[in-house]
């Protein structure tokens, strides 16, 4: 197999590629934060009666909350801030499809590239 000689990349091309990578990193990590997509999906189940008993705290728990500087009123939003695990099937299916599709693409495209690597490496010998 003929040895592949890659083109030399110009300085401007290198700078451009670095810029692409930086932009891609910021879009991937910053955009979910900006769009509010990152972070836990929690909500507060508010209670009318804000007492340790109503919040489900026994005397030992209540004494520790107080040691940490909390009252039933200030602890309410922490204790009642809960996850609500409802499986959203369409989103789950999309997530699974995206993940599986991504890995299939990765392995198939990698294998095509890998065959070139192996052919060049071992056919030279």
């Amino acid at each position: 197999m003929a040895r592949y000689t890659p083109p030399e990349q110009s300085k401007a091309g290198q700078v451009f590629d670095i810029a692409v990578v930086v932009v891609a990193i910021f879009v991937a990590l910053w955009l979910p934060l900006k769009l509010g997509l990152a972070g836990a999906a929690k909500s507060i189940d508010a209670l009318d009666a804000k007492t340790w008993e109503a919040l489900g705290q026994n005397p030992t728990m209540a004494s520790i909350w107080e040691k940490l500087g909390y009252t039933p009123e200030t602890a309410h939003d922490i204790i009642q801030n809960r996850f609500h695990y409802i499986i959203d099937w369409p989103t789950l299916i999309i997530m699974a499809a995206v993940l599986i599709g991504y890995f299939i693409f990765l392995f198939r495209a990698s294998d095509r590239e890998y065959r070139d690597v192996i052919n060049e490496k071992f056919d030279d010998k």
Partner: protein
Amino acid sequence: MTVTLEPAVQVQGDRVSLLRVLGPAHVWALGVGIVLVGEFTGWNFAADKGGALAALIVCWIVGLLYTSVAMIDSEVTSTVAAAGGQYAQAKHIVGPLMAFNVALFLVFAYTMLEVSDAILLGDTIVAKAGVEGLNHNSFIAATIVVLAWLNYRGVLMTLNVNFVITAIAYVSIVILFFSVSPWTQGAVLKLNELVTPGNALPYGWIGVIAAFQFGIWYYLGIEGTTQAAEEVRSPARSLPYGTMAGMITLLIAAAMTWYVCASLMPWEYLGITYYPLWDAGKLTGSPLLENLLFIATLLAALASANGCINDAARAWFSLGRDRYLPTWFSAVHPKYRTPYRSILFLLPIALAFAFIADLNQAITFSILSGVLQYTFMSINIIMFRKKWPLGSIRRGYTHPFHPLPAIVLFCLCVVTFFAIFLGFGSQLIAMVAFYFLISLWFHFYRYRFVRRGAQFTMPWPKPQGY
């Protein structure tokens, strides 16, 4: 003057290369140093997602996941001993595009872990100072810049520092554990009154599955030991030994941490605090323990951020060296022999995200990239054994029970993806979409600049099936 390295096959003779100065203790310090901060913050968010008992269950099950990671990694790394760790493994076993992605997983996982460490350190100092209006940004910036400078100056000094501060942080957990009379309940520890049948699993078993997401944080980063492969004196001995010793150390620390923290604070508070061990120190009523755990929290965060800068820079350096990214990144400092341009390039990225993300968002970014990497590792070891069966090449270490660890790892990764979906699904889809798009960019554009045969640098026979 700086010297730019060509691909690894040419890193010989008079060329400037990374220095082989590290031993097993440094490997242990690198792995445990990165991970130990997980005991000081992060693991406890598993209690938020599933309750205190769920945090314990995932501590054990995720421990199994990481034991599989350590076993698999020890075999492959002791055989493919090159900077970049899993990146070099992917390049030789799966192919260039997978290697490119794995390097990005590593860089993102470690950079976001470094960000989490810096946020923790800044918030801990601000909380201790108790001064109104004091902002954590200056502490975050100082941490990231000083540690980057340390890494710039040399790997041996960096990991010597890590060894000392990791050891102090670890000893503090042991001191806390024995100071609270762990063999008796009621005096200091009140596990029976805090974890009751009514609140042990507040969300039921779905909460246990959801808790896998932050259960990863108990151990995330132990696989970073492989990044030192080109800088250890004896990779075949030091890497498996350092990694396995690190894993045992962490399993013990995780069990002690859960027991003390769950016995000292209600799960609702445990699930949201940024400093569970420091809080545990406070709740013992001992000023000595409180101050010790405060200092240990800072040291653990420093050690982790230090190791993360080391690992992320080496993965980025490897991408430049193989032309997967511009070769400008592959320069080695002529005096300090460190990948200094990669260190400097990643510095502003870490700073930027430390200022805009909060702790659990940064942790989730890191976990996502970590789990993608573990999924790759489970398939990678199967392909490794298939392409080069036992006996066909010299392995520094051969892990037992193959393919059981790979199957266990893969199954636990699937469960963890589902766990991330339960609460952080949109973030997961956004990140995978990014990896998919950047892969298209690499496969259809960037790969033209990559030499083909020169990527394969190991002295192995042709893989079976090719």
